[in-house]
């Protein structure tokens, strides 16, 4: 079904990606930006361009919800929330990022890590 990505993100998060001025502060503070195929400020831009390939990117699964991007954004955009909505679009279509039973060291992990993985990586 055809939809406009920016509109859908607005429905899910209430955030308006058109406020972004591409200052790239979010990218500057992101602790996992170095692993991403698209940097946080590029992710926002791709949403504006309605480019759905961002939904298949690796970037959204590296995000660890540290909220630093949201903290730094001069336009008060909740960037972390937007990242979450891209994950949510995938998870709601049953496209999980991780198979819980295949997580390594299941027995040693603190339960909160599994709970977080359950919420963020599985739908």
């Amino acid at each position, binding site marked *: 079904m055809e939809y406009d990505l920016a509109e859908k993100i607005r429905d899910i998060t209430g955030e308006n990606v058109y406020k972004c001025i591409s200052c790239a502060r979010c990218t500057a503070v992101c602790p996992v930006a170095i692993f991403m195929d698209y940097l946080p400020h590029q992710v926002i831009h791709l949403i504006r361009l309605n480019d759905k390939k961002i939904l298949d990117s690796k970037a959204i699964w590296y995000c660890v919800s540290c909220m630093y991007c949201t903290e730094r954004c001069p336009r008060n955009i909740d960037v972390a929330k937007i990242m979450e909505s891209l994950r949510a679009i995938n998870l709601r279509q049953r496209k999980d990022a991780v198979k819980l039973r295949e997580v390594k060291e299941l027995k040693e992990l603190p339960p909160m890590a*599994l709970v977080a993985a*359950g919420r963020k990586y599985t739908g």
Partner: protein
Amino acid sequence: MESGNGNNPSSLKSKEHASIETSLGATRRTVTIYVMGKGYRVPEGLTILKALEYIGYKLIRGVGCRAGFCGACTTLWVKKGDYKLYSGLACQTVVEDGMYLVQIPFVPAEKRKYDINELDPTVSSVLALYPEIARCIGCNACTKVCPQNIQVMDAIQEILRGNIAKAARMVFDCISCGACSLRCPAEIKHFHVFQLVRRLYGKYLAPKAKHLELRVREIADGKYEEPLSKLIEEGSERWRGLAEKLQRGESLEED
């Protein structure tokens, strides 16, 4: 199985209305129930199970002990004007007018393979086998559908809280019907998790029956070999004699 035609007295099309005359000439009031969407009139006071058989269903699945213990006949139903989902065992639940029901004879669920000797009674052991319990969002759908009135969500959460013993005791009445797993948005297979927890409790946490251990050791040491072999040799006449003696209230000391 055959159901509902004009000749079947339970059919809504049949000429009988609010009551049914039994073969002994008594009249029973009827209620209307809907089985998988099709309506039938059945005598009131029957259990769902009996009502299904009255209608003409021959059950080979979804039926078991008929005594409220095995969990095979789990049934879900809704009532008119009420959005809630109700559950119960067909063999124990009396029909109500307007019940709109279906049986759940089977719920698909994988039981993980494990060696109980290699586990310890902690939440980490349970999470290692069933990590999906970490996905519990506290919606309580499981508790609402449990036909045994178990606090299912609380039991899962007690496991997450590390109280394996408490969780095991809470789920004693579980009959593994699986209705909870059907409703769970996190796809938890509660009854398998609960079985694991009960086993962990029984093996590691429950107080040991010392007299049982003693007796098992006595048997292994051969304490009862001789009297048993003697009994077997002497044959059934001797047993009958001993049994009669016991019945008369006499002691078996010298025997």
